[in-house]
């Protein structure tokens, strides 16, 4: 091998090694993980002697801190989770791009969302009608706990209940999808490690703002359902749960929440002839019908009057939108095509 070729090979190996290191280091993104012994990242969120909030945070609460970057007025991240939109506002020009600018985030938003929930081509920003709590408030985690343990347990939720700001939450210092904790705080003992997405893509694929029919990696999709069930245990239903009594007095018969639904087809002698061919063979997950942060879906008619799992009938109307991706029961109709 000539001296020239030797250098080319060495240079190639160095580039390859560097690429690998860089990819891992950026897996969790920004100040969230991938720390070296001499990292500067701690100083982004913490002060050792002049902290404004518990855990030596630079803001009064963890949510306030998160929103300094990810809020509507934040400048530290492209993901504006309040308005549910991807922007190009931080100092990093990601390559490849991690989302389409001005397009809705996959999770929706906490106060506004750019979702065409009416399925009419209008994805302009609208106030959300339901959202996961993110400000430390307490709500009921519907379906948490074992069979016949009631409608669900009260649980306080903030951003960090689900997300681990220090990243590398996957055990063995491995990154997780959206820095999600394997065991959300106060969720119990179930552990679900979600492999990180590489490259990241924060926005929905549909340019028209239609959130239903989003494609996810199959394994991730499956595991995400199990992850949701770390809090909402009794919603995790297999493909025969619509015809099988679970034994629970509230969550008695349940729609499949994870898997392919082949069992349903077998029970009915094949896929429904009238089923929507666009979606009927897709695997199912909680995220098939629901977004994670918040939805602007409207509820009217029967859909607005559905009682809550604890039998309460209020609040109703749009407040009953349950983070659904489509108005009313569009998520049913778009698959079942009745």
């Amino acid at each position: 091998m000539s001296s020239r070729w030797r250098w080319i090979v060495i240079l190639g190996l160095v580039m390859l090694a560097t690429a690998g290191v860089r990819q891992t280091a950026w897996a969790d993104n920004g100040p969230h993980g991938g720390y070296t012994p001499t990292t500067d990242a701690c100083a982004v969120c913490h002060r050792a002697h002049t902290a404004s909030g518990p855990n030596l945070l630079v803001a009064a609460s963890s949510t306030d801190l998160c929103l300094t970057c990810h809020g509507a007025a934040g400048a530290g991240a492209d993901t504006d989770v309040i308005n549910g939109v991807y922007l190009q506002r931080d100092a990093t020009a990601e390559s490849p791009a991690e989302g389409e600018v001005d397009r809705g985030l996959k999770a929706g938003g906490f106060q506004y969302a750019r979702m065409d929930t009416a399925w009419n081509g209008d994805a302009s920003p609208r106030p959300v009608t339901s959202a996961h709590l993110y400000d430390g408030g307490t709500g009921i985690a519907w379906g948490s706990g074992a069979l016949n343990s009631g409608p669900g347990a009260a649980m306080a939720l903030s951003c960090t209940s689900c997300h681990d700001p220090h990243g590398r939450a996957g055990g063995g210092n491995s990154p997780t999808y959206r820095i999600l904790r394997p065991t959300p705080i106060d969720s119990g003992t179930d552990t679900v490690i979600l492999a990180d997405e590489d490259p990241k893509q924060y926005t929905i694929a549909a340019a028209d703002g239609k959130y239903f029919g989003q494609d996810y990696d199959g394994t991730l999709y499956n595991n995400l359902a199990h992850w949701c069930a770390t809090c909402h245990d009794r919603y995790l239903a297999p493909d025969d749960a619509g015809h099988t009594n679970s034994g629970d007095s509230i969550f008695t018969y349940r729609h499949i929440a994870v898997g392919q639904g082949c069992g349903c087809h077998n029970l009915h002698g094949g896929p429904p002839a009238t089923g929507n061919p666009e979606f009927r063979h897709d695997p199912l997950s909680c995220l098939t019908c629901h977004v994670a942060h918040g939805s602007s879906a409207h509820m009217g008619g029967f859909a607005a009057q559905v009682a809550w799992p604890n039998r309460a009938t209020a609040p109703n109307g749009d407040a009953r939108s349950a983070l659904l991706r489509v108005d009313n029961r569009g998520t049913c109709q778009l698959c079942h095509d009745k």
Partner: protein
Amino acid sequence: MRWIRWLVPLLVLGLLVALAGQAYANGGPHGGYTATTDACAGCHRAHTAQGPNLLTAASTYELCMSCHGAAGTGADTNVADGVYTNRQGGGEGTVNDPLLGGGFVNYQTVAVTSIHDSDGTLSAAWGYGVARGSTANLPGALTCGSCHDPHGSPNYRILRENIAGNAVTVDQVDENNKNYTAEQWPDNVSNVCVACHGAYHVTRANSGEDNTDDNAGNVDYGGDISTYAHRIGMNYSYDGNVDPEATGYGGYTLPLTASKNVACQTCHLPHGTSASMTAQATAPFTNDSALLRLDNRGVCEVCHQK
């Protein structure tokens, strides 16, 4: 040729209008769904269902009765008492008049004497692939949903397009202006009965005297020539009978189809009857009123007037 350019869009528009009409044909939560329909939530829960098929009630029968039962509030048609009400505003029939299908608990304020079981307790039907006078098991237990498709249907009264494995077509006759209390039966309404009671579907002329084997399956004799049977599908005037619908006998009348033909429903009420059977009319099954519209054999006499 410019007119052809306009013809295609016009035809497409016409088709869309026609389809739109069909979509609204069934009413209430039963059909005509848009991509963002709320109707699913009328009957189903994705995670907190109390019955199979994700129903909000423990069974199909209970769910249907939550709207259409005596205590239901979701529909004007109280099929338990066989009466039209105005609890949802009325407008599609005469309030307090009997429903065309009869009742499952009462009919004309009298307790029923025979009904089509609809609560999942019966799974056999007379003449279902067997001779008249015999029963055979249906594919499943009989419920409201066995005959009616809650998700809508192009058939009259959301009757299923397939019942017990047999294709069913029953023309809609009043979809755009429903009337649940005025007799107006489609000419092919007997098809819904035939799906389960095929051996009773006798259309051969002079069937009361001619049950000879046609060596082609005797389709016009319900496939069963082991006995003789009354014919249906013919005009009421066959054999010189008077019009049972317009003329009747002794104040009693019987309905005919749109073309003045005799159908199963001319003599029988689909849901249930309070007709009383005495003496000879109780044979061969004690006190079985067989969903007949009139006491004893009034249904014979109104036409034949012997």
